[in-house]
């Protein structure tokens, strides 16, 4: 009479939970029982196939539809943030994000290397003369303990720019979001152009992040252009 197929051992082996003495016991059973071998092979194939089913990305609109389904009283507070996170892949929001990062990178590179034209001249956003002279349209003083200082929103003929003048003991980043556009700015002290911002947004939401953790937030108003 054949021994029963050691099902528990086969499953434990598949789960990687077999102990040494059980391994020996299973090996003996497999050696003498072709049914056990066939079952083991079949189960292994099933589990390999299951593990091979890849996770799919949720529909791009899922995030926004969840937020839209929240009670009306809480929705407005999330609206701008939803636009930032739920941007569909390949959409114009990504393009704005990449463009913003490229500009940031260029500015930081030029400033860091200490050569070439002044960073302010790079994107035509900052200092200069005449009509190009930036005007501070809003500013906010922040104090989050590890980070304090001032953030200014400036406007010149070239458009809007953000000026960070922060004091921080470690690198700080600011996530800028407004009207579906988004940009990540590395501080503590830098000036970056905000291409594409200001066309529809009335405010900019700033989220300050240090060492991967949000440490505070602020908001700047974008006054209508005269």
């Amino acid at each position, binding site marked *: 009479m054949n021994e029963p197929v050691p099902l528990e051992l086969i499953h434990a082996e598949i789960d990687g939970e077999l102990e040494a003495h059980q391994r020996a016991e299973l090996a003996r059973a497999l050696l003498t029982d072709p049914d056990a071998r066939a079952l083991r092979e079949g189960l292994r194939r099933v589990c390999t196939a299951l593990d091979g089913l890849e996770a*799919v990305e949720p529909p791009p609109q899922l995030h926004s539809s969840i937020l839209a389904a929240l009670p009306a009283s809480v929705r407005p507070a999330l609206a701008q*943030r939803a636009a930032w996170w739920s941007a569909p892949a390949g959409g114009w929001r990504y393009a704005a994000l990449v463009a913003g990062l490229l500009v940031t990178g260029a500015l930081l590179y030029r400033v860091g290397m200490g050569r070439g034209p002044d960073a302010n001249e790079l994107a035509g956003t900052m200092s200069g003369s005449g009509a190009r002279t930036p005007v501070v349209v809003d500013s906010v003083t922040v104090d989050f303990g590890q980070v304090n200082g001032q953030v200014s929103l400036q406007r010149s003929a070239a458009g809007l720019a953000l000026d960070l003048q922060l004091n921080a003991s470690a690198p700080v980043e600011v996530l800028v979001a407004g009207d579906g556009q988004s940009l990540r700015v590395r501080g503590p002290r830098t000036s970056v152009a905000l291409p594409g911002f200001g066309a529809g947004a009335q405010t900019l939401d700033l989220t300050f992040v240090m060492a991967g953790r949000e440490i505070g937030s602020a908001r700047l108003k974008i006054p209508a252009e005269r």
Partner: protein
Amino acid sequence: MGPTNLLQSARYFVEEEDDGSLVRRCRDGDLKAFDRLVIRYQKPVYNAALRMLRNPEDARDVAQTVFLKVFEHLEQYDPNLKFYSWIYRIALNESVNALGRLRPHEAISGNEIDQTPGLERQLDSEQTRHAIEQALMRIQPEQRSVVVLRHFLHLSYEEMGAILELPEKTVKSRLYTARQLLRDLLLQDGVC
């Protein structure tokens, strides 16, 4: 680095705050924290529902319902339970509820068996995927639940037990049975 990677990087960058902290902030009325939880869990919740229901539209509806329930019942969440255990439990329950609401022909979509004789099939990975997805829909929802938790959400038996509110031994037994049923179904179809 492409734009998608950039965004993923940005998401990772701000998503390190642990679930417990986000839940506490949510309870204090911080909606940004809820937003973070949605971002963090929308993919596993959607995928769990998709594996339970197979239909992407139904899965999307269930995922949306799950997050609304989380939002509405956050005050009832027991912090002794891991947040992911709680949300996955809701996801599985909502999926099972959705299965009950589906019309019969929708609920048995897994029975659309390919009748091509097994020996004549040139099985490739795509066909295997299709076959295993079909077989999944032909086992009982409670069996499918343990498969989803183990093979798609990669949870331990202890975590599965916490979610299903079952002893580990029962969870194991249920999963073993589910695997063997899947194997039998695939054998019938000449896949395994």
